[in-house]
């Protein structure tokens, strides 16, 4: 693997990890909202 390839892979992994973190955070907020709505 060349250094350029390694850099591209790391960049893609970083952006995917960031998106996954945002999605998980949004799901936490969504599930909290659903729980409150179901309880009321």
């Amino acid at each position, binding site marked *: 693997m*060349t250094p350029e390839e390694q850099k591209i*892979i790391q960049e*893609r992994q970083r952006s995917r990890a960031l998106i996954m973190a945002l999605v998980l955070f949004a799901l936490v907020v*969504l599930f909290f909202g659903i729980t409150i709505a179901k309880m009321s």
Partner: protein
Amino acid sequence: MATNASLLTDEAPVSSVPMPAEWRDFVALTKPRVMTLVVFTGLCGLLVAPGHIAPILGFTAILCIALGAGAAGALNQWYEADRDARMKRTAARPLPAGRMDRESALHFGVGLSFFSVLLMGFATNWFAACILAVSILFYVFVYTIWLKPRTAQNIVIGGAAGAFPPLIGWAAVTGDVAALPFALFMLIFFWTPPHFWALALFVRMDYANAGIPMLPVVAGERVTRRQILFYTSIMAAAAMAPVLLELTGLVYGLTAFIATAIFAVMAFQVSLSRETDPAKMIPERRLFKYSVLYLFLIFGAVVVDHWVYAA
């Protein structure tokens, strides 16, 4: 999560190692443009349903419809990767372009399917979740795997898959289905053939190269033009049915009448045309574009009509 075929495009650098797909490719796998129509019709079904749903649960229902549609789109692309590679219109998708491997697309599609159905069930009700599951399974197994490669009637029967969202939106609120969402289901069902066949007329060679038996490929253009007019007439009856059955009021009735009349005129022009050069098929392209606008207009009118008469 890797691909080593990345490199069918001019821009992509030749790589000796498998590259992980970008997150944008996962978004592209869900066919976002198709999703907008699905979300809109599902939202309209939800908004006109009688009863109340908490906004966060309504939002979740629409999110689940979107995720379910995205999952079905991903599984469709997973199954059709080889065929997509032979069509100009679809060759740039993540799988045929080699930016993603098939296993990732399969896992993404299956995971998203289960997640959307389960979330729908827990957030709203299991009846709506069942219809969502049926719509995903219908699109993948009945349309994509069974009908599409075998018969020219593929999009006639398969059109049902895209007609489910108003039923799901309605069911998310009420827990059942009634005459109005069923009428909207029938409208999308009969709208699908003229919509897709208008497209198939001017991308006929693409479908022929991919071996997909679309109507213009197996029956010819004249038959397709006649069939577009035939299904447009049934669609017109389906569009007027809600007002004739007094399920909607005059706001919808007037909008549906005018919008459908324009659709019918365009379909008539297509039926009269004998153009064989795809580049010169102006009426066909116009009908295809208008058919998308038509569905937005009709469903928007259902919601406005509901608000006017509920006020």
